[in-house]
C-alpha cells in the first residue's frame, strides 16, 4: 500500500490533497467537515484587514456545463473572507489545535505596504498555523483595490512582499500566482528571489462565463450588471498544468516547490500535476461541485495507481514528466504516427471521417466496398490525432508509431533517425548538428 503521507515545506499532512483557499475553507464548520472527510490540509480562506470586506448579495458564482450539465467551468466574484479578522484567527487556532496532523495554511491579502504585513503576520503566527499563502491571484474585486492579481501581475511587487513576509515571520511562505499574465515564469522567479519558500498556482482566470440574452447582462449579474470573475474548474486544468510545467522546467526555478492548483477533480488530475513538478495539490471546484467525500476517491485512486506503478511515496514520481517537456523545435520530425481504427470497437458514428474530411486531411474512409466502414488512408494521414480526439469510444482509435517500411504519404522511410527543426532544410536558421 503506497504511503500518501506528504511533506511540503516541512509541513506534514496525511495526504497531498489540500483544500484551496476559497469558500470551502472560510470557517471552522466547513474545515472540520473537510478534515472529518479526510482532507490532508487546508489553505484557510484569505484573511484581510478589518474592517472586513463585504460581498454582493446577488449571485457570486457562474458556471459553464457540458451537454449533460456536468460542471466543467466555474467562476466567482466572491471576495476574501467577509468575517472579522479575529473571528477567523480564533477558529484557525481552535481547528489547528483539534487537528494537529492536518496542514493549516493561512491565505493573506493586505495592502501593499510593509506595515500592513508586519501587523497581520504575528497574529497568524499566534494561531499555530503551519504557513501562509500570499494571495496575489484573485483577479476580481480586490484587484481594483490594488491587491490580489494587481500585485501578482508585477514581479517586483511579488518579490517585495515575499521579502517582507520572510522578514516578519518564521512561517513558510507560499506565493499564490495569478495566471492573468503573459509569462508565468517572471512572477515565479520573483517569488523565489524574494525568498518565498514555494509558489502555488494557478489562481483563477479573468472571465465572463455567459451572457444573459434576455437582460443583455453578463452572468452572474446583480441588479442587471455583472463584472468579470475568476474562472476555475476542470476547464482550466490544461492552462494550469502548462504554467506549473513552465516553472518546473525553467532553469531559474527548477526544483522550487510548487503546490499545484487548477481544476483538479480526480486522482488522475492530481497525479498529472505532480508528474509535472507539483509537490502537492490543492482542490476547490471539485469539492464545491460534489462535496468533501471526493477525497476518498482522490486518495484511494492515487494510492492504487502508485501501487500499480510501484511507487511507495509521492516524491518518487513528483516531477517525473518534467524532463519530457521540451520546446517544439526539439521534437523528432522523423517520428511517424498513423491513426488506427479498431473495427471491433468502432460503433460507426462516422465522426472521425467527417471531421477529417471537412477540417483536416481527407484521410478516413466512410465506405469500403459499399459498406459503411471507417478506415485510415495512410497516404493521407498526417497523424494529427483529431480523429482520436473526437471518437466517442475510448481506445477505438489510436496513434501508432510506424517503424517499418515507407510512408505512402511522403515516400520517406519510417525508420529515419531522430532529426528536429534545428537542422531542418526549411529552417533559415538551421544548424548542422541537431540540438537536443
Amino acid at each position, binding site marked *: 500500500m503506497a504511503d500518501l503521507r506528504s511533506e511540503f515545506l516541512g509541513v506534514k499532512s496525511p495526504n497531498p490533497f489540500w483544500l484551496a483557499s476559497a469558500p470551502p475553507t472560510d470557517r471552522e464548520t466547513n474545515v472540520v467537515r473537510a478534515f472529518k472527510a479526510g482532507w490532508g490540509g487546508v489553505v484557510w480562506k484569505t484573511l484581510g484587514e478589518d474592517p472586513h470586506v463585504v460581498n454582493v448579495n446577488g449571485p457570486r458564482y457562474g458556471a459553464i456545463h*457540458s*451537454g*449533460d*450539465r456536468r460542471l466543467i467551468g466555474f467562476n466567482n466574484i466572491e471576495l476574501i473572507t467577509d468575517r472579522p479578522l479575529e473571528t477567523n484567527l480564533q477558529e484557525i487556532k481552535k481547528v489547528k489545535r483539534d487537528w494537529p496532523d492536518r496542514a493549516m495554511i493561512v491565505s493573506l491579502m493586505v495592502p501593499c505596504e510593509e506595515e500592513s504585513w508586519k501587523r497581520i503576520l504575528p497574529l497568524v503566527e499566534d494561531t499555530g498555523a503551519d504557513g501562509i499563502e500570499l494571495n496575489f491571484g484573485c483577479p476580481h474585486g480586490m484587484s481594483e483595490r490594488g491587491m490580489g492579481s494587481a500585485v501578482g501581475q508585477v514581479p517586483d511587487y511579488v518579490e517585495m512582499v515575499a521579502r517582507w513576509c520572510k522578514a516578519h515571520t518564521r512561517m513558510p511562505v507560499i506565493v499564490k500566482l495569478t495566471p492573468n499574465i503573459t509569462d508565468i515564469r517572471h512572477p515565479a522567479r520573483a517569488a523565489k528571489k524574494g525568498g518565498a519558500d514555494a509558489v502555488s498556482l494557478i489562481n483563477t482566470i479573468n472571465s465572463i462565463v455567459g451572457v444573459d440574452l434576455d437582460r443583455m447582462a453578463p452572468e452572474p449579474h446583480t441588479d442587471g450588471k455583472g463584472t468579470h470573475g475568476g474562472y476555475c474548474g476542470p476547464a482550466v486544468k490544461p492552462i494550469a498544468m502548462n504554467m506549473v510545467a513552465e516553472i518546473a522546467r525553467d532553469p531559474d526555478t527548477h526544483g522550487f516547490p510548487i503546490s499545484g492548483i487548477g481544476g483538479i477533480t480526480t486522482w488522475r488530475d492530481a497525479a498529472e500535476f505532480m508528474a509535472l513538478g507539483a509537490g502537492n495539490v490543492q482542490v476547490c471546484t471539485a469539492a464545491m461541485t460534489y462535496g468533501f467525500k471526493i477525497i476518498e476517491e482522490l486518495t484511494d485512486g492515487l494510492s492504487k495507481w502508485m501501487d500499480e506503478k510501484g511507487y511507495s511515496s509521492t516524491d518518487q514520481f513528483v516531477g517525473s514528466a518534467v524532463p519530457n517537456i521540451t520546446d517544439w523545435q526539439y521534437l523528432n520530425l522523423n517520428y511517424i504516427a498513423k491513426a488506427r481504427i479498431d473495427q471491433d470497437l468502432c*460503433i*460507426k*458514428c*462516422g*465522426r472521425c*471521417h*467527417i471531421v477529417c474530411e471537412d477540417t483536416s486531411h481527407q484521410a478516413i474512409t*466512410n465506405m469500403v466496398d459499399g459498406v*459503411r466502414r471507417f478506415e485510415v488512408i495512410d497516404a493521407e494521414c498526417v497523424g494529427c490525432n483529431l480523429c482520436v480526439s473526437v471518437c*466517442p*469510444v475510448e481506445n477505438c482509435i489510436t496513434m501508432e508509431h510506424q517503424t517499418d517500411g515507407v510512408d505512402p504519404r511522403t515516400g520517406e522511410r519510417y525508420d529515419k533517425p531522430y532529426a528536429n527543426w534545428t537542422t531542418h532544410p526549411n529552417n533559415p536558421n538551421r544548424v548542422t548538428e541537431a540540438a537536443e
Partner: protein
Amino acid sequence: MSSTPVTAAKAASGVASGRLDADAYAENFSDLHPLFEPHEALVEADRCYFCYDAPCVQACPTGIDIPMFIRQIATGNTLGSAETIFDANILGGMCARVCPTETLCEQACVRHEAEEKPVRIGRLQRYATDHAIREDVQFYERKDPTGKHVAVVGAGPAGLACAHALAREGHAVTLYDAKKKLGGLNEYGIAAYKTVDDFAQKEVDYILAIGGIELKAGVALGRDIHLATLQDDFDAVFLSLGMGGANDLDIKDADLGGVHDAIDFIADIRQAPDLSALPVGRSVVVIGGGMTAIDIASQVKRLGAEDVTIVYRRGAPDMKASEFEQHLAQTTGVRIKHWAIPKEIIGEGGRVRSIVFDYVAPDAGGALTPTGESFTLAADQVFKAIGQNFLEDALGSAGVALKRGRIAVDADRRTNLETVWAGGDCIEDGLDLTVAAVEDGKIAARAINAHLASGG
C-alpha cells in the same frame, strides 16, 4: 393490473363490461410513453453523437434529419427541432408515438451498437413536435394559388401528408374520407394507450391549418364518389384508401357470436367515450401475429379480461409485431403461443365457448403442416387479427391496375392511370407503417406537383 383484488365484476364469466373500477381503466389506458420533461429531454438529447451520414436517418422511411433535430433540442431550440422533423414528416407527432422505433431509427442508432441503449429518438421527436403543436406554431405558408385542383381520397397518414404538401405548393385540395373523423388508422386503429388525449384529431387540425384543403368527410369512394368522375373533375387524384377488409378464418363456425374482427374492436376502443362500457370475455383468444394482434390482446387485457392468449402460426421471430411489442403484450399479462393454427371453433347457444388449435411445423419447403397434436383454449371471445385486404371494388371500372391484390404503383407512387397516384396501405409492397404511408404521400405529392407544374 394485478394490484386490484378479484371482484365479482372482474371475474364475471362470459362476456361482460365494467370489469374494472374507473381508476384501473384510467391507469391501464394512460400514455404508454409519457412526454419527456425538459430535463429528461436534455439528458437524452445529449446522448446523441451527431453522427456523420447518420444510420438513424437512413433507417427512417421519411429520412428525418434526426441528429439535427436532437441537437436543436439540446441547444434549447425546440421549435427549430420541430420544424426539422416536419420538413421531412408532417405527421412526425404521430410517428413519434406509433413508429416501431426499435426496428427503425433506434435499431440503427450507434448507441445501440455501443451499449445496447439507443438514444430514445421517438420520445425526443415527440418532445419537439408536441411543443410546436401545443403552441400551435405553423412553419409553412401556402404559395400563391396555382389554380390546380387535386383530389385526395382517404385522410389517413398518406392522404394527410400528400394533401399538406400539395396545399403548401398552392394547389387546391379536396380531401375525402369515408369516415366521419379524419386520420384513418391514426384515429380508428392503433392501441389507445399510444395516442391519448385525442392527439390524432389535434394533429389533423394542425396539418389542415395550412389552408387550401377542403374537407369531405363521410364520403366513400365507390359509393358516393367515383374514380372516373374524379379523374374528370380534378387535375390529379391521390388514392390513400387503406385496407378496408379483414381476412377471415377459413374454418367452421367462424361466424359464431363472440368471434370478432380485431380491427373493429380496436376502433370501438378508440372511439369509446367510456371504456367500462366495452364488454370483454373472461377468456379471450387472439389469432394472429402482427401489430393488430398485439394491440387487441393488450387492450382486451387492459379492459379486464382475465386470460388473453395470442396464438400465432409461426415462431416469435416471424411475428410482424416487433420484439418490443411482443414484450409489451407479455408484460401486460398476455400469453403468446406459437406454431399453432385454429382448427375448430366450438360454440354453445350460438356463442363461442372454446377453440381448438392444431400444432404445426414447417416442412422442408417452409409450408406449415399439422403435427397431429392439438390443444383447446376456452374462449368467451375470439379476435381475428390475421391481416386485412384491399377492397378493390371501391375503384370501380376506372381500370386501375393491381398487383398482389393492391394498387400497382411506380417509384413516384403513380398508378397506371395518367393522373392517378396512390400510397399507404392500399399499394403493393406497402410496409403497413404510418411512417411509410407518410413517405408515400410525400413522394406522390412531389410527383403530382411536378406533373402539374409541367402543365399536366
